[in-house]
């Protein structure tokens, strides 16, 4: 099997805070990989490093044969991403947001229009295509965001808690579509989620990260037998403990908090 994502000894620090602590893993071409962990474990920071938004403090990341830091332009050609937090332009309509994405990713015009219709219908937003995004509810924005992420068919698809706050029907539709993409076009899928049953059902391989370190990885069955538990949720809890994590902000929020605290002195 050929690996398409290689992460070697990667560390990311924000000041004194170590968000990601010397992690390494590989993901094979065409695999569906779930990256699980409690809040603030380092999932999103890892995704941001893999998608060229943050540079690591130490270590190397290779995506589709290119070094993420040195060849970031080439790397950007090989992936697509659905972010955890919103990334739509509120002042544009749903259709314009899709169209803009299509142009940025040079999806051929005809194909682009065809897919926009298909995807907006999938997430049940086709009849709202000309409404401004600022008029949308949170769930609608989430759905639009996913539709947009699926508009171009990249080699690797990153999904950072894509189905958060969506009803089971929509979640089901979306995962079905993604599985088909994975099967028909061999797209590698890297996703994070807090719904353990989703990870168990969809992911071929799972890694669990906590306090910036990968503490376990393998198939759902392997993780369950290793921890002697009946479900992935129990396996997850036995590995990461039952203590509720203090909800930490994103690295940016943290920096902002620190700076504000400093400014107010």
């Amino acid at each position: 099997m050929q690996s398409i994502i290689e992460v070697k000894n990667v560390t990311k620090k924000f000041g004194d805070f170590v968000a990601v602590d010397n992690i390494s893993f590989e993901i094979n071409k065409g695999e569906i990989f779930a990256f699980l962990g409690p809040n603030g474990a380092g999932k999103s920071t890892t995704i941001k490093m893999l998608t060229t938004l943050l540079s690591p403090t130490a270590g190397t990341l290779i995506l589709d044969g290119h070094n993420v830091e040195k060849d970031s332009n080439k790397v950007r050609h090989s992936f697509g991403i659905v972010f955890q937090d919103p990334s739509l332009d509120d002042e544009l309509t749903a259709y314009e947001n899709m169209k803009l994405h299509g142009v940025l990713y040079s999806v051929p015009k005809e194909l682009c229009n065809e897919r926009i219709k298909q995807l907006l219908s999938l997430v049940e937003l086709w009849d709202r295509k000309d409404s401004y995004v600022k008029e949308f509810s949170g769930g609608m924005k989430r759905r639009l965001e996913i539709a947009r992420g699926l508009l171009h068919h990249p080699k690797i698809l990153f999904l950072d808690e894509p189905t958060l706050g969506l009803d089971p029907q929509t979640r089901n539709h979306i995962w079905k579509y993604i599985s088909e993409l994975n099967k028909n076009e061999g797209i590698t899928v890297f996703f994070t989620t807090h719904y353990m049953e989703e990870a168990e059902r969809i992911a071929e391989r799972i890694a669990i990260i906590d306090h910036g370190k990968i503490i376990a990885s393998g198939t759902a069955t392997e993780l369950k037998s290793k921890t002697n538990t009946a479900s992935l949720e129990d396996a997850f809890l036995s590995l990461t403990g039952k203590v509720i994590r203090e909800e930490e902000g994103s690295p940016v929020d943290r920096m902002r908090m620190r700076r504000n605290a400093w400014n107010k002195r």
Partner: protein
Amino acid sequence: MKTIYILWLRQLKRYFRSRSRMIGSLAQPLFFLLSLGYGFGPVFKAAGQGSYIQFLVPGIIGMSIIFTSIFSGMEIIWDRQFGFLKETLVAPVSRFNIMIGRTLGGATVATMQGVLVFLISLFIGFKPIHWGLVPLAIVIMLLSALLFTAMGTAIASRLEDMQGFQLIMNFLVMPLFFLSGAIFPLAGAGLLGKIAQFDPLSYSVDALRSLLSGISQFGIGADFCILAIITFAFLALGSYFFSKIQI
């Protein structure tokens, strides 16, 4: 090319859809024109400087351009806060093209704003010295707009949230405007006149004044060359900072 076009179009759409912003950014220059223009007019005339409206209008055009441009450049902070910036930063297009698209869009908006102020000023008694020179004045407006949009982009690329925005408005844009000779003649202003030589807006205002009103301090040739050089410098700086953005 398509990237540049689509991001340029986005800036224009955002501008035309935000009525309050359009009205607000026209009201301010209008108030300046009316209050300063009519208020200081008689004093200016008595001092033997001629018509104050003829003198003031190019300055107010410059003002509306610098405000709109820096604001457009700094929209990056908004996009960062609302998340849209990420969408463009992970796209497989060069960050240089993204920056150029945004900057051209912001500069186009600011130039239109400048032209609108020019048109309004015709109603309150402004007369350009020669209509044939108006297109050249528009070129100067565009060049200045590019300069200040790139400046806004460069600054906003280094800022994380909107709190820095007020700071920039008060400690950069206001001084740039007041020291530029937009509202008073630089000749004979002593130290102020010397400081103004380090203000890029002085050259925009001077160029516009020489093309529209026939009054010049530095000469149109010098104005144009200096503006062109500073514009390229800020475009380079802006695209460098933009390419280094981390989220």
